Protein backbone atom coordinates (compact mmCIF):
# COMPACT_ATOMS: atom_id res chain seq x y z
CA UNK A 1 0.00 0.00 0.00
CA UNK A 2 2.83 2.35 0.91
CA UNK A 3 4.61 1.49 -2.32
CA UNK A 4 1.51 2.32 -4.33
CA UNK A 5 1.06 5.62 -2.54
CA UNK A 6 4.72 6.40 -3.07
CA UNK A 7 4.51 5.71 -6.79
CA UNK A 8 1.33 7.72 -7.16
CA UNK A 9 2.75 10.77 -5.42
CA UNK A 10 5.93 10.53 -7.52
CA UNK A 11 3.78 10.40 -10.64
CA UNK A 12 1.78 13.40 -9.43
CA UNK A 13 4.93 15.43 -8.80
CA UNK A 14 6.27 14.52 -12.23
CA UNK A 15 2.98 15.49 -13.86
CA UNK A 16 2.96 18.84 -12.09
CA UNK A 17 6.51 19.48 -13.25
CA UNK A 18 5.71 18.55 -16.83
CA UNK A 19 2.73 20.86 -17.00
CA UNK A 20 3.80 23.80 -14.88
CA UNK A 21 7.50 24.15 -15.69
CA UNK A 22 7.14 24.38 -19.47
CA UNK A 23 4.48 27.00 -18.80
CA UNK A 24 7.11 29.08 -17.01
CA UNK A 25 9.77 28.71 -19.68
CA UNK A 26 7.26 29.44 -22.45
CA UNK A 27 6.86 32.95 -21.10
CA UNK A 28 10.51 33.66 -21.95
CA UNK A 29 9.73 32.99 -25.62
CA UNK A 30 8.19 35.68 -27.71
CA UNK A 31 7.20 33.62 -30.72
CA UNK A 32 7.06 29.98 -31.78
CA UNK A 33 7.31 29.54 -35.56
CA UNK A 34 6.29 26.31 -37.24
CA UNK A 35 7.45 25.24 -40.70
CA UNK A 36 6.46 22.20 -42.75
CA UNK A 37 8.51 20.95 -45.70
CA UNK A 38 7.44 18.51 -48.40
CA UNK A 39 10.92 17.00 -48.59
CA UNK A 40 14.19 16.86 -46.71
CA UNK A 41 16.10 19.97 -45.70
CA UNK A 42 19.24 18.26 -46.96
CA UNK A 43 18.18 18.55 -50.58
CA UNK A 44 20.50 21.47 -51.42
CA UNK A 45 17.36 22.88 -52.99
CA UNK A 46 13.83 24.16 -52.37
CA UNK A 47 13.37 22.81 -48.86
CA UNK A 48 16.85 23.78 -47.77
CA UNK A 49 16.23 27.39 -48.77
CA UNK A 50 13.34 27.67 -46.31
CA UNK A 51 15.23 25.87 -43.58
CA UNK A 52 18.27 28.13 -43.96
CA UNK A 53 16.14 31.29 -43.93
CA UNK A 54 14.12 30.28 -40.86
CA UNK A 55 17.20 29.17 -38.96
CA UNK A 56 18.66 32.59 -39.70
CA UNK A 57 15.51 34.33 -38.44
CA UNK A 58 15.45 32.23 -35.26
CA UNK A 59 19.10 33.09 -34.74
CA UNK A 60 18.78 36.85 -35.19
CA UNK A 61 15.42 37.61 -33.55
CA UNK A 62 15.49 37.09 -29.78
CA UNK A 63 12.91 34.81 -28.19
CA UNK A 64 11.99 32.94 -31.37
CA UNK A 65 11.64 29.16 -31.28
CA UNK A 66 11.50 27.18 -34.51
CA UNK A 67 9.58 23.93 -34.99
CA UNK A 68 10.22 22.08 -38.23
CA UNK A 69 8.71 18.99 -39.85
CA UNK A 70 10.22 17.38 -42.95
CA UNK A 71 8.67 15.03 -45.49
CA UNK A 72 5.17 16.28 -44.75
CA UNK A 73 2.91 14.98 -47.53
CA UNK A 74 0.55 17.30 -49.39
CA UNK A 75 -2.57 15.83 -47.87
CA UNK A 76 -4.71 15.87 -44.73
CA UNK A 77 -1.66 14.53 -42.91
CA UNK A 78 -0.23 18.05 -43.20
CA UNK A 79 -3.19 19.34 -41.16
CA UNK A 80 -2.31 16.93 -38.39
CA UNK A 81 1.29 18.12 -38.33
CA UNK A 82 0.29 21.79 -38.24
CA UNK A 83 -2.25 21.15 -35.49
CA UNK A 84 0.50 19.48 -33.50
CA UNK A 85 2.70 22.53 -33.90
CA UNK A 86 -0.14 24.83 -32.78
CA UNK A 87 -0.54 22.64 -29.71
CA UNK A 88 3.12 23.27 -29.00
CA UNK A 89 2.44 26.99 -29.07
CA UNK A 90 3.16 27.92 -32.68
CA UNK A 91 1.63 31.27 -33.60
CA UNK A 92 3.15 31.66 -37.06
CA UNK A 93 3.20 28.82 -39.54
CA UNK A 94 4.97 28.58 -42.90
CA UNK A 95 3.61 25.78 -45.11
CA UNK A 96 6.30 25.70 -47.77
CA UNK A 97 5.01 23.44 -50.52
CA UNK A 98 2.35 24.37 -53.04
CA UNK A 99 0.23 21.34 -52.15
CA UNK A 100 0.18 22.33 -48.46
CA UNK A 101 -2.12 25.22 -49.33
CA UNK A 102 -5.52 23.65 -48.76
CA UNK A 103 -4.61 21.75 -45.60
CA UNK A 104 -3.06 24.93 -44.20
CA UNK A 105 -6.10 27.00 -45.17
CA UNK A 106 -8.33 24.53 -43.31
CA UNK A 107 -6.18 24.78 -40.21
CA UNK A 108 -6.15 28.56 -40.50
CA UNK A 109 -9.96 28.61 -40.47
CA UNK A 110 -9.99 26.72 -37.19
CA UNK A 111 -7.34 28.92 -35.56
CA UNK A 112 -7.96 32.59 -36.31
CA UNK A 113 -5.30 33.58 -33.77
CA UNK A 114 -2.53 31.71 -35.62
CA UNK A 115 -0.98 33.32 -38.71
CA UNK A 116 -0.02 31.61 -41.93
CA UNK A 117 2.04 32.57 -44.95
CA UNK A 118 1.95 30.01 -47.75
CA UNK A 119 4.64 29.70 -50.41
CA UNK A 120 3.53 29.72 -54.01
CA UNK A 121 -0.26 29.74 -53.65
CA UNK A 122 -3.04 32.27 -54.06
CA UNK A 123 -5.47 31.75 -51.16
CA UNK A 124 -5.93 34.59 -48.69
CA UNK A 125 -7.84 35.35 -45.54
CA UNK A 126 -7.39 37.56 -42.50
CA UNK A 127 -4.75 35.24 -41.07
CA UNK A 128 -3.53 33.61 -44.28
CA UNK A 129 -1.26 35.25 -46.82
CA UNK A 130 0.86 34.02 -49.70
CA UNK A 131 4.25 34.85 -51.18
CA UNK A 132 6.82 33.65 -53.64
CA UNK A 133 10.02 34.84 -55.26
CA UNK A 134 9.96 36.11 -58.83
CA UNK A 135 12.56 33.98 -60.52
CA UNK A 136 11.82 34.42 -64.21
CA UNK A 137 13.73 37.64 -64.88
CA UNK A 138 16.51 36.42 -62.57
CA UNK A 139 17.21 33.58 -64.99
CA UNK A 140 18.31 36.13 -67.60
CA UNK A 141 21.74 36.73 -66.03
CA UNK A 142 22.02 32.96 -65.59
CA UNK A 143 21.57 32.65 -69.34
CA UNK A 144 24.25 35.28 -69.84
CA UNK A 145 26.64 33.21 -67.71
CA UNK A 146 25.80 29.99 -69.56
CA UNK A 147 25.99 31.63 -72.95
CA UNK A 148 29.49 32.88 -72.23
CA UNK A 149 30.80 29.67 -70.64
CA UNK A 150 29.48 27.14 -73.14
CA UNK A 151 31.81 25.75 -75.79
CA UNK A 152 29.28 23.56 -77.58
CA UNK A 153 26.59 26.29 -77.68
CA UNK A 154 24.11 23.75 -76.38
CA UNK A 155 22.59 24.35 -72.96
CA UNK A 156 20.43 21.79 -71.18
CA UNK A 157 17.46 22.52 -68.93
CA UNK A 158 15.67 19.88 -66.85
CA UNK A 159 12.23 20.89 -65.63
CA UNK A 160 9.77 19.01 -63.49
CA UNK A 161 6.38 20.11 -64.73
CA UNK A 162 6.01 22.64 -67.57
CA UNK A 163 3.90 25.17 -65.66
CA UNK A 164 4.03 28.73 -66.92
CA UNK A 165 6.54 29.81 -64.28
CA UNK A 166 9.00 27.04 -65.21
CA UNK A 167 8.61 27.78 -68.92
CA UNK A 168 9.23 31.43 -68.14
CA UNK A 169 12.47 30.51 -66.38
CA UNK A 170 13.63 28.65 -69.48
CA UNK A 171 12.64 31.53 -71.72
CA UNK A 172 14.56 34.12 -69.71
CA UNK A 173 17.54 31.76 -69.62
CA UNK A 174 17.61 31.42 -73.40
CA UNK A 175 17.04 35.15 -73.93
CA UNK A 176 19.99 35.88 -71.65
CA UNK A 177 22.20 33.32 -73.41
CA UNK A 178 21.30 34.69 -76.84
CA UNK A 179 22.08 38.22 -75.75
CA UNK A 180 25.78 37.29 -75.46
CA UNK A 181 25.92 34.25 -77.74
CA UNK A 182 23.57 34.29 -80.77
CA UNK A 183 24.32 30.60 -81.47
CA UNK A 184 23.27 29.34 -78.03
CA UNK A 185 20.39 26.87 -77.92
CA UNK A 186 18.60 25.48 -74.87
CA UNK A 187 17.33 21.91 -74.92
CA UNK A 188 14.48 21.18 -72.50
CA UNK A 189 13.69 17.80 -70.96
CA UNK A 190 10.58 17.39 -68.78
CA UNK A 191 10.66 14.70 -66.11
CA UNK A 192 6.95 14.88 -65.23
CA UNK A 193 7.35 15.51 -61.51
CA UNK A 194 9.05 18.00 -59.23
CA UNK A 195 11.04 15.34 -57.41
CA UNK A 196 11.63 12.17 -59.44
CA UNK A 197 15.34 11.72 -58.94
CA UNK A 198 15.86 8.71 -61.20
CA UNK A 199 14.23 10.56 -64.09
CA UNK A 200 16.33 13.64 -63.33
CA UNK A 201 19.50 11.56 -63.61
CA UNK A 202 18.30 10.04 -66.89
CA UNK A 203 17.23 13.45 -68.18
CA UNK A 204 20.60 15.00 -67.36
CA UNK A 205 22.36 12.10 -69.06
CA UNK A 206 20.16 12.48 -72.13
CA UNK A 207 21.02 16.18 -72.37
CA UNK A 208 24.73 15.49 -71.95
CA UNK A 209 24.50 12.73 -74.58
CA UNK A 210 23.16 15.36 -76.99
CA UNK A 211 26.18 17.58 -76.49
CA UNK A 212 25.02 20.04 -73.84
CA UNK A 213 27.95 21.21 -71.77
CA UNK A 214 25.99 23.40 -69.35
CA UNK A 215 22.93 22.12 -67.50
CA UNK A 216 20.37 24.05 -65.48
CA UNK A 217 17.21 22.86 -63.82
CA UNK A 218 13.87 23.71 -62.28
CA UNK A 219 13.09 20.80 -59.98
CA UNK A 220 12.81 20.62 -56.20
CA UNK A 221 16.41 19.62 -55.66
CA UNK A 222 19.25 20.44 -58.04
CA UNK A 223 21.44 17.78 -56.42
CA UNK A 224 20.95 14.92 -58.88
CA UNK A 225 21.24 16.99 -62.06
CA UNK A 226 24.31 18.87 -60.80
CA UNK A 227 26.09 15.73 -59.62
CA UNK A 228 25.34 13.89 -62.85
CA UNK A 229 26.77 16.79 -64.85
CA UNK A 230 29.79 17.03 -62.56
CA UNK A 231 30.54 13.32 -62.97
CA UNK A 232 30.59 13.75 -66.74
CA UNK A 233 32.69 16.88 -66.77
CA UNK A 234 29.93 19.34 -67.66
CA UNK A 235 29.17 22.71 -66.11
CA UNK A 236 26.11 23.46 -64.06
CA UNK A 237 23.93 26.36 -63.00
CA UNK A 238 22.02 25.76 -59.80
CA UNK A 239 18.56 26.71 -58.60
CA UNK A 240 16.51 26.88 -55.37
CA UNK A 241 19.42 27.14 -52.95
CA UNK A 242 22.78 28.88 -53.32
CA UNK A 243 24.29 26.05 -51.24
CA UNK A 244 24.07 23.74 -54.25
CA UNK A 245 27.48 25.00 -55.36
CA UNK A 246 29.04 22.61 -52.85
CA UNK A 247 28.02 19.75 -55.12
CA UNK A 248 30.05 20.84 -58.14
CA UNK A 249 33.55 21.93 -57.13
CA UNK A 250 34.76 21.91 -60.74
CA UNK A 251 31.76 22.64 -62.90
CA UNK A 252 29.79 25.25 -60.95
CA UNK A 253 29.22 28.46 -62.88
CA UNK A 254 26.64 30.26 -60.74
CA UNK A 255 23.05 29.80 -59.72
CA UNK A 256 19.92 31.27 -58.20
CA UNK A 257 18.77 30.76 -54.66
CA UNK A 258 15.81 31.89 -52.65
CA UNK A 259 16.59 34.27 -49.81
CA UNK A 260 13.47 34.26 -47.70
CA UNK A 261 15.06 35.59 -44.51
CA UNK A 262 14.32 39.32 -44.97
CA UNK A 263 10.65 38.60 -45.68
CA UNK A 264 10.36 36.06 -42.86
CA UNK A 265 11.94 38.52 -40.46
CA UNK A 266 9.38 41.17 -41.42
CA UNK A 267 6.50 38.75 -40.93
CA UNK A 268 7.80 37.44 -37.60
CA UNK A 269 8.23 40.97 -36.32
CA UNK A 270 4.71 41.87 -37.41
CA UNK A 271 3.28 38.89 -35.52
CA UNK A 272 5.21 39.79 -32.39
CA UNK A 273 4.04 43.42 -32.65
CA UNK A 274 0.46 42.38 -33.35
CA UNK A 275 0.44 44.08 -36.74
CA UNK A 276 0.21 41.04 -39.01
CA UNK A 277 -1.28 41.75 -42.40
CA UNK A 278 -2.12 39.01 -44.88
CA UNK A 279 -0.91 39.97 -48.34
CA UNK A 280 0.29 38.47 -51.59
CA UNK A 281 4.00 39.25 -51.64
CA UNK A 282 6.19 38.70 -54.67
CA UNK A 283 9.75 39.98 -54.62
CA UNK A 284 12.59 39.25 -57.00
CA UNK A 285 16.28 39.99 -57.30
CA UNK A 286 17.78 42.84 -55.38
CA UNK A 287 18.87 43.72 -51.86
CA UNK A 288 16.33 42.46 -49.33
CA UNK A 289 14.61 40.54 -52.11
CA UNK A 290 13.59 36.91 -52.27
CA UNK A 291 16.01 35.77 -54.98
CA UNK A 292 19.79 36.02 -54.94
CA UNK A 293 22.62 35.02 -57.23
CA UNK A 294 25.04 32.42 -55.90
CA UNK A 295 28.79 32.98 -55.78
CA UNK A 296 30.65 32.16 -58.99
CA UNK A 297 32.62 28.97 -59.47
CA UNK A 298 36.39 29.05 -59.58
CA UNK A 299 36.50 28.39 -63.32
CA UNK A 300 34.49 31.50 -64.23
CA UNK A 301 36.80 34.21 -65.63
CA UNK A 302 36.66 37.79 -64.37
CA UNK A 303 35.14 39.27 -67.52
CA UNK A 304 32.23 36.84 -67.41
CA UNK A 305 31.64 37.64 -63.74
CA UNK A 306 31.48 41.35 -64.55
CA UNK A 307 29.06 40.74 -67.39
CA UNK A 308 26.75 38.58 -65.27
CA UNK A 309 26.79 40.96 -62.32
CA UNK A 310 26.03 43.90 -64.61
CA UNK A 311 23.16 41.97 -66.17
CA UNK A 312 21.79 41.08 -62.72
CA UNK A 313 21.94 44.72 -61.63
CA UNK A 314 20.03 45.72 -64.74
CA UNK A 315 17.32 43.16 -63.99
CA UNK A 316 17.12 44.15 -60.34
CA UNK A 317 16.56 47.76 -61.37
CA UNK A 318 14.03 47.85 -64.15
CA UNK A 319 15.15 45.81 -67.15
CA UNK A 320 12.45 43.42 -68.33
CA UNK A 321 13.76 40.77 -70.75
CA UNK A 322 10.17 39.94 -71.78
CA UNK A 323 9.85 43.04 -73.93
CA UNK A 324 8.65 42.62 -77.49
CA UNK A 325 9.15 41.69 -80.22
CA UNK A 326 9.61 38.12 -79.00
CA UNK A 327 9.12 35.18 -81.33
CA UNK A 328 8.51 31.64 -80.13
CA UNK A 329 10.30 28.56 -81.43
CA UNK A 330 7.62 27.90 -84.06
CA UNK A 331 8.02 31.34 -85.57
CA UNK A 332 4.91 32.95 -84.07
CA UNK A 333 5.25 36.41 -82.55
CA UNK A 334 4.13 36.00 -78.93
CA UNK A 335 5.02 39.43 -77.53
CA UNK A 336 4.58 42.28 -79.99
CA UNK A 337 6.96 45.19 -80.35
CA UNK A 338 6.26 47.78 -77.68
CA UNK A 339 4.57 45.27 -75.38
CA UNK A 340 6.12 43.69 -72.36
CA UNK A 341 5.03 41.01 -69.94
CA UNK A 342 5.16 42.05 -66.30
CA UNK A 343 5.30 40.02 -63.10
CA UNK A 344 1.58 39.24 -63.21
CA UNK A 345 1.99 37.38 -66.51
CA UNK A 346 4.83 35.07 -65.43
CA UNK A 347 2.48 32.12 -65.08
CA UNK A 348 1.10 32.54 -68.58
CA UNK A 349 3.94 31.14 -70.66
CA UNK A 350 2.65 28.41 -72.96
CA UNK A 351 5.47 28.70 -75.50
CA UNK A 352 9.24 28.61 -75.64
CA UNK A 353 11.24 31.44 -77.18
CA UNK A 354 13.21 31.02 -80.37
CA UNK A 355 16.34 29.01 -79.69
CA UNK A 356 14.74 26.62 -77.24
CA UNK A 357 14.43 23.05 -78.45
CA UNK A 358 11.33 21.63 -76.83
CA UNK A 359 7.56 21.54 -76.78
CA UNK A 360 5.50 22.87 -73.90
CA UNK A 361 2.48 20.61 -74.40
Amino acid at each position, binding site marked *: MRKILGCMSLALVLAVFMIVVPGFTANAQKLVIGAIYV*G*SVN*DYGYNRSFHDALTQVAGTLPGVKLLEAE*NVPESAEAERVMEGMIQQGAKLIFPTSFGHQEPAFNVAKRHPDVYFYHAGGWMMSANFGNYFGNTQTAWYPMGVAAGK*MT*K*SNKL*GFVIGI*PIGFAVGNVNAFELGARSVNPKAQT*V*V*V*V*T*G*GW*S*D*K*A*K*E*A*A*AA*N*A*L*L*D*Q*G*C*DVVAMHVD*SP*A*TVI*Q*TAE*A*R*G*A*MSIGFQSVEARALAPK*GWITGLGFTWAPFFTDVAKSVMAGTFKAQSVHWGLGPGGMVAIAPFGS*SVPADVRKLVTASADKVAKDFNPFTGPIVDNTGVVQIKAGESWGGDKMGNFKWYVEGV*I*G*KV*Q
Partner: protein
Amino acid sequence: MPWVKSTTLFNYDLLIWIVVPVAVLVWWLLFGTKWGLGVRAVGESPAAAFASGRNASAVQFQALFAGGLLGGLAGAHLSLSLTLTWAEGMTAGRGFIAIALVIFSKWHPLRAIAGALVFGGAEALQLQLQARGADISPFLLDMLPYVLTILVLLAWGGSRRHAAPAGLGRTFYGTE
Protein backbone atom coordinates in the same frame (compact mmCIF):
# COMPACT_ATOMS: atom_id res chain seq x y z
CA MET B 1 36.54 23.13 -69.18
CA PRO B 2 37.37 19.48 -69.86
CA TRP B 3 35.51 17.77 -72.64
CA VAL B 4 32.14 16.34 -71.65
CA LYS B 5 32.22 12.56 -71.58
CA SER B 6 30.04 12.00 -74.58
CA THR B 7 28.24 8.87 -73.52
CA THR B 8 27.52 6.74 -70.49
CA LEU B 9 27.70 3.56 -72.55
CA PHE B 10 30.11 1.15 -70.83
CA ASN B 11 30.76 3.78 -68.20
CA TYR B 12 28.77 1.77 -65.69
CA ASP B 13 29.42 0.96 -62.09
CA LEU B 14 29.82 -2.61 -60.86
CA LEU B 15 26.18 -3.18 -59.90
CA ILE B 16 24.89 -2.52 -63.41
CA TRP B 17 27.37 -5.05 -64.83
CA ILE B 18 26.19 -7.79 -62.48
CA VAL B 19 22.45 -7.26 -63.10
CA VAL B 20 22.18 -9.76 -65.96
CA PRO B 21 24.58 -12.31 -64.39
CA VAL B 22 22.54 -12.19 -61.19
CA ALA B 23 19.33 -12.81 -63.12
CA VAL B 24 20.97 -15.79 -64.80
CA LEU B 25 22.20 -16.96 -61.40
CA VAL B 26 18.65 -16.78 -60.01
CA TRP B 27 17.40 -18.75 -63.02
CA TRP B 28 20.01 -21.42 -62.40
CA LEU B 29 19.25 -21.50 -58.68
CA LEU B 30 15.53 -21.92 -59.33
CA PHE B 31 15.69 -24.41 -62.19
CA GLY B 32 19.04 -26.14 -61.77
CA THR B 33 19.40 -26.88 -58.06
CA LYS B 34 17.56 -28.98 -55.54
CA TRP B 35 17.00 -25.93 -53.39
CA GLY B 36 15.33 -24.20 -56.33
CA LEU B 37 13.15 -27.23 -56.93
CA GLY B 38 12.09 -26.96 -53.30
CA VAL B 39 11.27 -23.28 -53.69
CA ARG B 40 9.14 -23.96 -56.77
CA ALA B 41 7.45 -26.87 -55.06
CA VAL B 42 6.57 -24.78 -52.03
CA GLY B 43 5.37 -22.03 -54.36
CA GLU B 44 2.96 -24.39 -56.12
CA SER B 45 1.68 -26.18 -53.04
CA PRO B 46 3.17 -25.68 -49.59
CA ALA B 47 1.03 -28.47 -48.19
CA ALA B 48 2.34 -31.02 -50.69
CA ALA B 49 5.92 -29.88 -50.16
CA PHE B 50 5.39 -30.12 -46.42
CA ALA B 51 3.99 -33.59 -46.80
CA SER B 52 7.07 -34.62 -48.76
CA GLY B 53 9.27 -33.58 -45.85
CA ARG B 54 10.28 -30.04 -46.71
CA ASN B 55 10.00 -27.25 -44.17
CA ALA B 56 7.73 -24.95 -46.15
CA SER B 57 8.06 -22.00 -43.77
CA ALA B 58 11.84 -22.16 -43.86
CA VAL B 59 11.88 -22.27 -47.66
CA GLN B 60 9.49 -19.33 -47.89
CA PHE B 61 11.66 -17.38 -45.48
CA GLN B 62 14.78 -18.16 -47.52
CA ALA B 63 13.11 -17.04 -50.73
CA LEU B 64 11.90 -13.85 -49.05
CA PHE B 65 15.38 -13.21 -47.73
CA ALA B 66 16.92 -13.60 -51.18
CA GLY B 67 14.28 -11.35 -52.72
CA GLY B 68 14.76 -8.74 -50.03
CA LEU B 69 18.51 -8.84 -50.55
CA LEU B 70 18.18 -8.17 -54.26
CA GLY B 71 15.55 -5.49 -53.67
CA GLY B 72 17.83 -3.80 -51.16
CA LEU B 73 20.70 -3.86 -53.65
CA ALA B 74 18.48 -2.21 -56.22
CA GLY B 75 17.44 0.50 -53.79
CA ALA B 76 21.01 1.10 -52.69
CA HIS B 77 22.05 1.45 -56.31
CA LEU B 78 19.24 3.90 -57.01
CA SER B 79 20.39 6.17 -54.22
CA LEU B 80 24.15 5.76 -54.14
CA SER B 81 24.98 5.39 -57.79
CA LEU B 82 22.17 6.54 -60.05
CA THR B 83 20.75 9.64 -58.40
CA LEU B 84 23.58 10.39 -55.95
CA THR B 85 21.08 11.54 -53.33
CA TRP B 86 18.21 10.30 -51.19
CA ALA B 87 14.68 11.58 -50.88
CA GLU B 88 11.54 10.16 -49.35
CA GLY B 89 9.51 8.29 -51.96
CA MET B 90 12.31 8.35 -54.50
CA THR B 91 11.42 4.95 -55.94
CA ALA B 92 8.35 6.71 -57.31
CA GLY B 93 6.27 3.61 -57.87
CA ARG B 94 8.93 1.58 -59.62
CA GLY B 95 8.39 -1.26 -57.15
CA PHE B 96 4.91 -1.70 -58.57
CA ILE B 97 6.36 -1.73 -62.06
CA ALA B 98 8.68 -4.49 -60.86
CA ILE B 99 5.63 -6.49 -59.74
CA ALA B 100 4.10 -5.97 -63.19
CA LEU B 101 7.41 -7.14 -64.63
CA VAL B 102 7.22 -10.38 -62.64
CA ILE B 103 3.77 -11.10 -64.03
CA PHE B 104 4.87 -10.06 -67.52
CA SER B 105 7.78 -12.51 -67.40
CA LYS B 106 5.56 -15.34 -66.12
CA TRP B 107 7.76 -15.77 -63.07
CA HIS B 108 10.76 -16.72 -65.22
CA PRO B 109 14.03 -14.86 -64.50
CA LEU B 110 15.36 -14.96 -68.05
CA ARG B 111 12.17 -13.48 -69.50
CA ALA B 112 12.42 -10.88 -66.75
CA ILE B 113 15.71 -9.67 -68.24
CA ALA B 114 13.95 -8.89 -71.50
CA GLY B 115 11.01 -7.33 -69.70
CA ALA B 116 13.24 -5.15 -67.53
CA LEU B 117 15.09 -3.90 -70.57
CA VAL B 118 11.78 -3.00 -72.21
CA PHE B 119 10.35 -1.24 -69.15
CA GLY B 120 13.53 0.56 -68.14
CA GLY B 121 14.53 1.29 -71.69
CA ALA B 122 11.20 2.91 -72.45
CA GLU B 123 11.54 5.24 -69.50
CA ALA B 124 15.01 6.31 -70.58
CA LEU B 125 13.94 6.45 -74.23
CA GLN B 126 11.24 9.05 -73.70
CA LEU B 127 13.75 11.37 -72.03
CA GLN B 128 16.28 10.78 -74.82
CA LEU B 129 13.59 11.61 -77.38
CA GLN B 130 12.88 14.88 -75.61
CA ALA B 131 16.60 15.74 -75.58
CA ARG B 132 16.74 15.09 -79.30
CA GLY B 133 13.99 17.64 -79.85
CA ALA B 134 11.24 15.21 -80.80
CA ASP B 135 8.20 17.19 -81.86
CA ILE B 136 5.92 15.25 -79.51
CA SER B 137 4.28 16.59 -76.38
CA PRO B 138 6.30 15.70 -73.27
CA PHE B 139 3.04 14.55 -71.67
CA LEU B 140 2.52 11.98 -74.43
CA LEU B 141 6.15 10.90 -74.22
CA ASP B 142 5.71 10.38 -70.48
CA MET B 143 3.05 7.79 -71.33
CA LEU B 144 5.49 5.85 -73.51
CA PRO B 145 6.73 3.29 -70.95
CA TYR B 146 3.17 2.30 -70.04
CA VAL B 147 1.88 2.24 -73.63
CA LEU B 148 4.86 0.15 -74.67
CA THR B 149 4.18 -2.27 -71.81
CA ILE B 150 0.59 -2.75 -72.94
CA LEU B 151 1.66 -3.24 -76.56
CA VAL B 152 4.34 -5.78 -75.65
CA LEU B 153 1.90 -7.65 -73.44
CA LEU B 154 -0.66 -7.74 -76.25
CA ALA B 155 1.90 -8.96 -78.78
CA TRP B 156 3.87 -11.45 -76.73
CA GLY B 157 1.68 -11.85 -73.69
CA GLY B 158 0.21 -15.24 -74.25
CA SER B 159 -1.97 -16.79 -71.62
CA ARG B 160 -1.05 -15.89 -68.10
CA ARG B 161 -3.87 -17.72 -66.44
CA HIS B 162 -1.71 -20.60 -65.26
CA ALA B 163 1.59 -18.80 -65.02
CA ALA B 164 1.40 -17.81 -61.35
CA PRO B 165 2.56 -20.30 -58.74
CA ALA B 166 -0.61 -21.82 -57.29
CA GLY B 167 0.42 -21.23 -53.70
CA LEU B 168 1.15 -17.53 -54.18
CA GLY B 169 -0.46 -15.31 -51.61
CA ARG B 170 -1.80 -18.12 -49.49
CA THR B 171 -0.51 -18.52 -45.95
CA PHE B 172 0.60 -21.98 -44.95
CA TYR B 173 0.07 -22.78 -41.29
CA GLY B 174 1.76 -26.16 -41.09
CA THR B 175 0.17 -29.07 -39.32
CA GLU B 176 -3.23 -28.34 -37.90
